[in-house]
C-alpha cells in the first residue's frame, strides 16, 4: 500500500507567503553594485566565505535560502558574515537568531532591533525587517563604526565559535555514538 504525499509548487511554502501581494515582490532585473562588480571575481561566489567586498561594510543583511519556513535554516550565507567578522541581520525564518544562540553564537541586540526574530507572520516580519534596515541606513556612518567597536568582542567570539564548530559537532557525535553503541 502506497501512502505517499506528492509534492508540488503549492507545497513549497517558502514561495507562497505573499500570494495576495501585500508586499511588492515583483521580479526585478539583476543588479550588481560597483563595489562588487569591480572586484576581480565580478560577483560573489557561494563557495567562498571571505570576500574583499566585505571589508568596507558595516552590517551584512543575510537573505537566507528560506523565509517562510517552520524551522530556522542557517547556511553558508550566515557563516560568511561571521567569517568576515561582520554584524548581521538574518532575513530568514523566525527563531533564526535563537537557533544561532543555541549553538554558541551571539547577536547584536544592543544596536539592531532583533524583535523580528520572534515575529511568525511573514508579512509582518518582512515589514519589520525593512523598517529596521531603513532606520540603520539613516544613521551617520560614525554610529555604525561605533557599534562595530562596541561589538568587537562579539565579532571575535563568533569567529572563534565558527573555527571550533567542526570539533564541537564531532564531540557531540562522539557522545551520541558512545551512548547508542555501548
Amino acid at each position, binding site marked *: 500500500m502506497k501512502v*505517499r*504525499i506528492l*509534492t508540488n509548487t503549492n*507545497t*513549497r*511554502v*517558502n514561495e507562497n*507567503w*505573499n500570494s495576495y501581494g501585500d508586499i*511588492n*515582490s515583483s*521580479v526585478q*532585473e*539583476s*543588479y*550588481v553594485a560597483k*563595489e*562588487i562588480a569591480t572586484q576581480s571575481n565580478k560577483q*560573489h561566489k557561494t563557495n567562498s*566565505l571571505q570576500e574583499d567586498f*566585505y571589508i*568596507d*561594510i*558595516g*552590517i551584512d*543583511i543575510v*537573505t537566507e*535560502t*528560506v*523565509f*517562510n519556513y517552520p*524551522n530556522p*535554516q542557517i547556511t*553558508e*550565507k550566515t*557563516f560568511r558574515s561571521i*567569517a*568576515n567578522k*561582520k554584524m548581521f*541581520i538574518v532575513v530568514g525564518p523566525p527563531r533564526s537568531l535563537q*537557533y544561532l544562540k*543555541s549553538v554558541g553564537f551571539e547577536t547584536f541586540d544592543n544596536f539592531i532591533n532583533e524583535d523580528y526574530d520572534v515575529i511568525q507572520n511573514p508579512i509582518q516580519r*518582512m515589514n519589520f525587517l*525593512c523598517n529596521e*534596515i*531603513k532606520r540603520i*541606513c539613516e*544613521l551617520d556612518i560614525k554610529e*555604525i*563604526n561605533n557599534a*562595530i567597536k562596541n561589538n568587537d568582542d562579539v565579532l*571575535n567570539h563568533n569567529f572563534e565559535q*565558527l573555527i571550533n*564548530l567542526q*570539533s564541537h559537532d*564531532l564531540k557531540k557525535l562522539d557522545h*551520541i*555514538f558512545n551512548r*547508542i*553503541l555501548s
Partner: protein
Amino acid sequence: MTIKKILKYNLTENFLNYLEDRINVIDYINIADLTNEQDYNDLKTQIENTKKDSFNKDDFYVVSHFDTDYYLPNCPYGLLMFNFIRTIQEVDVSLNNVIVLTNIDNLLDEIKYIIPQDKHETELPIVIDKCLSICRNNYVHDDYQNIPINYNVKKHALVLFGKERVHRNALYNFINQNNLKEKIVVSYRNNESKNINKHKHTS
C-alpha cells in the same frame, strides 16, 4: 573517500571518514534526492537490496536532511520526511537502524507526528540535529584567515541576494523604492540567464 560520494550525500569528507570509522554504514540516503514517485520506488528497491535479515547494533542507514522540505498548511511535518518514513516502513526496516543528520533543531518532534504514539519508545530513528559543520555546502572549516575588524567602514550594509526568491524580491524592491543603494552594497543575480546583458552598475 570518493568525490562523487561526498557530493551526493552533501556531507564533508572529514565527517564521512568519521562515520565509517564509528559505524557500519549500510547505505547513504539523501532526502533531497527524493522528489517524485519514481525516486521513492528506486529508494524502496535500494533498501530491499541492502537490508539484512538481522541488523547489528552498529548497522545504520545514514540519511542526510539538509535541504528544505515541502509543507502543507498547518501540517506539522515535512512531506519528504513523511514519504521517506513511509517507504522505510513499506520495506519493513526498523527505524532504529536509521540515523538522520539534519541542520534543523526539532526534526524528531516532526517525525513523532508521523509515527504512532505507542511506537515512540521503540520505533524512532536516531536524529542528530543542529549539525551545521558536517553539511558540505556550509563550507565550515577551522582554517579561516583571522582578519582584523574594520572600525572605519564606508558603507552601512551589504546584501548578496543570490537566486531569486519572493523574500529577496520584497527586500530588493524596498531598497530600490527607498533609495538605499547609496548606503547598501547590493548584488542580485535573479533572472541572470535572461538578463545577462542588462546588469547595471552604480556610478
